[in-house]
C-alpha cells in the first residue's frame, strides 16, 4: 500500500510540474497571444475583454494560482475561437481517442505477442529472420503511407470498409468496428512491430536464464515452462513498452486522425495550434500528460504484481 501511495504521489508531483510548463506555454510564445489569436479581427474592446477574461492582465504568480485552482475544479477556460468551455471540447473528443487507442493496442498485441515469442523460440532460424525483417519494415513504414494503402485497398478497390468517419461504440458497435478497423490496424502494425522486437529479445533473454534450464531439466512440459517460467518473466520489460505505446496513442495520433478523419485529440491539438487557440492547446496538453502519467502509474503497479521484488527494491 505504501508503494502505491508513493507512486501516486510521484505522479501528482510530475503533474504539478506539467501545469507549470503548460501555464508557461502562453507566456513563452513571442508576442501577445490574445492579439495573435484575434488576427485580422482585431478590435480594442473585444481585445480588452478577452484579455481580462483570460486574466492575462494580472501578475504572473496570481495567474498561475488562479489557473491551477480552476484546473483542479475542471475549469480549463474557454476556447478563443468558439467561446466553448475547453473541458467540454476535450471531453467530446475523448471517446474517439480512447476507443482508437485501445483498438490499436489490441491489434498491436495480437500481432506482437505470438510473433515475438515464436521468433524467440526459433532463434536464428529462417522464420526468425523473416519475422525480424517484417517487423523492421513495420517500424520503418510511415503511418500516412500505410493508411493510404489501406484506404486504396479496402475502400477504393475492395469496397469493404468506409474510408473515414467515426461512430461511437455505444451507438452502434458494428459500425464502430468497421470504422475503427483501418485506423486501428495502421496504429497497431507500427506499434506491434516495435513491440515484437521487444518481446523477442525479452523472451530470448529469459530463455537463457538458469531457472528455465532448471525447469526444463526437472522434466516440466514445454508449455508449462513457457507459460509459467518464460513468458511471465519476460513480461516485465514488455509492459514498459506496451505502456509507452498506449500512452502515445492516447495522446492523439495526428497523422492517422487526419487521414481517416477521426475526431480525436490529435486533430483538435493540430487545429488549435494552427488557430493559436491557446486555452485549448493548454487543456489538451494537460489532459494528455495526465493520461500518460495514469498509464505509467498502472504499468508500475502491474510490475509489482508480476515481479514482487520491485515493491521491496523501491
Amino acid at each position, binding site marked *: 500500500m505504501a508503494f502505491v501511495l508513493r507512486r501516486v504521489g510521484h505522479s501528482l508531483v510530475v503533474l504539478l510540474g506539467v501545469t507549470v510548463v503548460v501555464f508557461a506555454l502562453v507566456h513563452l510564445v513571442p508576442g501577445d497571444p490574445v492579439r495573435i489569436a484575434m*488576427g*485580422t479581427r482585431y478590435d480594442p474592446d473585444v481585445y480588452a475583454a478577452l484579455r481580462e477574461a483570460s486574466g492575462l492582465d494580472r501578475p504572473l504568480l496570481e495567474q498561475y494560482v488562479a489557473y491551477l485552482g480552476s484546473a483542479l475544479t475542471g475549469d480549463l477556460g474557454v476556447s478563443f475561437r468558439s*467561446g466553448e468551455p475547453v473541458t467540454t471540447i476535450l471531453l467530446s473528443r475523448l471517446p474517439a481517442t480512447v476507443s482508437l487507442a485501445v483498438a490499436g493496442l489490441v491489434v498491436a498485441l495480437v500481432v506482437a505477442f505470438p510473433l515475438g515469442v515464436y521468433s524467440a523460440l526459433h532463434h536464428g532460424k529462417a522464420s526468425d529472420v523473416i519475422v525480424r525483417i517484417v517487423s523492421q519494415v513495420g517500424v520503418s513504414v510511415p503511418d500516412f503511407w500505410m493508411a493510404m494503402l489501406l*484506404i486504396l485497398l479496402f475502400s*477504393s478497390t475492395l469496397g469493404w470498409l468506409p474510408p*473515414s*468517419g467515426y461512430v461511437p461504440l455505444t451507438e452502434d458497435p458494428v459500425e464502430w468496428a468497421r470504422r475503427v478497423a483501418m485506423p486501428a490496424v495502421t496504429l497497431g502494425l507500427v506499434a506491434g512491430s516495435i513491440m515484437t522486437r521487444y518481446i523477442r529479445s525479452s523472451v530470448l533473454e529469459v530463455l537463457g536464464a538458469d531457472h528455465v534450464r532448471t525447469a526444463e531439466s526437472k522434466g516440466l512440459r514445454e508449455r508449462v515452462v513457457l507459460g509459467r517460467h518464460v513468458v511471465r518473466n519476460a513480461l516485465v520489460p514488455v509492459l514498459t513498452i506496451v505502456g509507452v505505446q498506449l500512452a502515445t496513442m492516447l495522446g492523439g495520433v495526428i497523422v492517422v486522425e487526419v*487521414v481517416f478523419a477521426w475526431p480525436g485529440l490529435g*486533430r483538435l491539438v493540430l487545429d488549435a495550434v494552427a488557430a493559436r487557440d491557446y486555452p485549448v492547446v493548454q487543456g489538451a496538453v494537460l489532459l494528455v500528460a495526465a493520461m500518460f502519467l495514469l498509464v505509467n502509474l498502472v504499468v508500475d503497479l502491474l510490475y509489482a504484481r508480476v515481479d514482487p521484488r520491485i515493491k521491496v527494491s523501491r
Partner: protein
Amino acid sequence: MTTRTTRRAGLAVVATVATAALFAACSPGEGVDVDGSGEGGSGDAGGILVAAIAGEPDQLDPQSTSSYFSFQVLENVFDTLVAPDENLVMQPALAESWEISDDQLTWTFTLRDDVTWHDGTAFDADDVVYSYRRIMDEELASSWRFAAVEDVSATDERTVVITVTNPSPNLLASIGGYKGVAIVQQENVESGEITTQPVGTGPFELSAYSSGERIELVAHEEHWGGAPHLDGVTFQFIPEPTTALAALAAGEIDWTDSVPPQQVGSLMEDSSIDIAQVGSNDYWYLATNQANPPFDDVRVRQAIAYAIDRDAITEATMYGNATVNQTAIPVSSAWYTEYDTYSLDTARASDLLDEAGVDDLTIDLMVTADYPETVTAAQVIESQLAEVGIAVEIRSLDFGTWLDEQGQGNWDMLMLGWLGNIDPDDFYYGQHHTDGPNNYQGYSNPEVDDLLDAGRTETDEQARQEIYAEAATQIADDASYIYLYNPAVVQTWSPDVVGYVARGDRAIRFADVSLDR
C-alpha cells in the same frame, strides 16, 4: 471612419460579382444541371446529402467568422438582402425589390413578408437594421463594405432605408456579396449562442454539431424560397483529399471540394463522378516593396514582370487549374480588361535593369507555408530571376509573422492572393490607391487615385467600365502588383446529386439540390 479590414487569401473567402461564371468542363456526357430539377416543394424524395469539407468551422457567427469552412456551411443557413445568382448578378433574396432615389443617395428596400427565423419567430426590418448596425458599430470583418453607408433605418416592418454619403454603384454587391453580411437575429447574438447554435432564415437549419466530425443541417420547411428538396445536409470534416475522394467513390459522401489539383486531370476521365472546374475571381500576385530602393524605380519592377514565366509558375503551383492573367480581374468577368504587356522577355528585363543602373541585386522573397503555392512558386521565381542576374533569398514564415512583417515593411518581395472580390473597386482601391488600407507596397500614382475615386461613385455602367479599364492598365504598367493567375474552383460530386451548380464565388448552395437514388 471605418477601416477596411484585411481580407487575405483564406481568411475571408467569398463572393464575386461578374457575369458569366465559366464552366470549363464537367464529366463526359454528364452536363451540369443548371436549373435544379424543379420549383421548391416538399413532395420530393428528400434524403440527406453528405458533403465533405476539408476543415472545421472556427465558429458559426457569419458576421464574425473569417473561416471559409464556416461560410461553406453558413451559406445554407443564413440569407442576405440580395444574393448573387450563378452568373454573379445580384437578385432579390430577403428584399423582394428596391428603389434608388434620383440623387442616388437613398436606397429603399422592400422586404418579403413570408420570412421566418428557424426558431419560428417572424423576421422584419428591425432585424436588418440590427444586423447592419452590428457590423458597422462593432467594426466587424466586413465593416469596410459599409464605408459609404451613412444610416440604416426601418420605416415600417417591411421597409429598410439605407442612406449613403455618395453614389455607391457597388452597394448591392456590398450587402449581398457574401454571408459575412448576412442578417442575424439579435436574440441569438446577444445570448452568445450564435457561435455554436446559429438561428438564421436560410433554407437549412442547424440540428447537430459534433466537434471534429460533422455539422448536420435539416430543411427549414418554411423557407421563403420554398422548402428544400433535401431533408437535410451533413457537412463532414475530412482533411485529407485522398480520403475524401475514396469516401466519394465508396458512396459515403455525395460531394466534396477536397480535390488535389494534380488529380483533376484523371478525375475528369472518371465517368463515375461529376466534376466541375469553374473560373474564380480570386487572384495571386507578386508585389515589391516600393519603399525599398531599387523597387521605387518602375523599371526594376517592370524588369521582374518581364523576367518571370507565368505559365511555368501556374503549372508548378496549380497543375494547370488556373488561368494566367496579367491583371487582377479574370477573363470570365464583365469587368475584364485585356492586358498582355509582360510576355516572358529576359533580354528586355536585362535592358531595363541596365537602364535603372541595377546590378548584383539580391531580393528577399517572403512566402508562407500556410499557402503552399507561395512556397512552390518562390522556387520557380528564384530560378527565373537568376536568368537576369537577380538573386532571390526565399524566406518562409508562418502566416501570422508574415502579416506582421508585411505590415512593418520588412520585406522586398512577397507573393499572396486576394479572394472574394465582387466589384472592381474591391480589386483595386484598397491595394493601389495611395490611401488604400492594403497598399503595403507603397504605390502612389495620382492619376490612378483619381480614377479609383471616380469609379467608386460613377453610376453609368459603361463609363465605370472605362474608368476601371484605364486604372487596371496603369496599375499593371507601373507594376504595382505583378499579377500571376486566377485559380479555378474545383468540386466533385456523385451523379446521384441533381441540380448542383459549382460557382465561381465558391458559395456552396444546396437549397435547389435533390438526390436521385
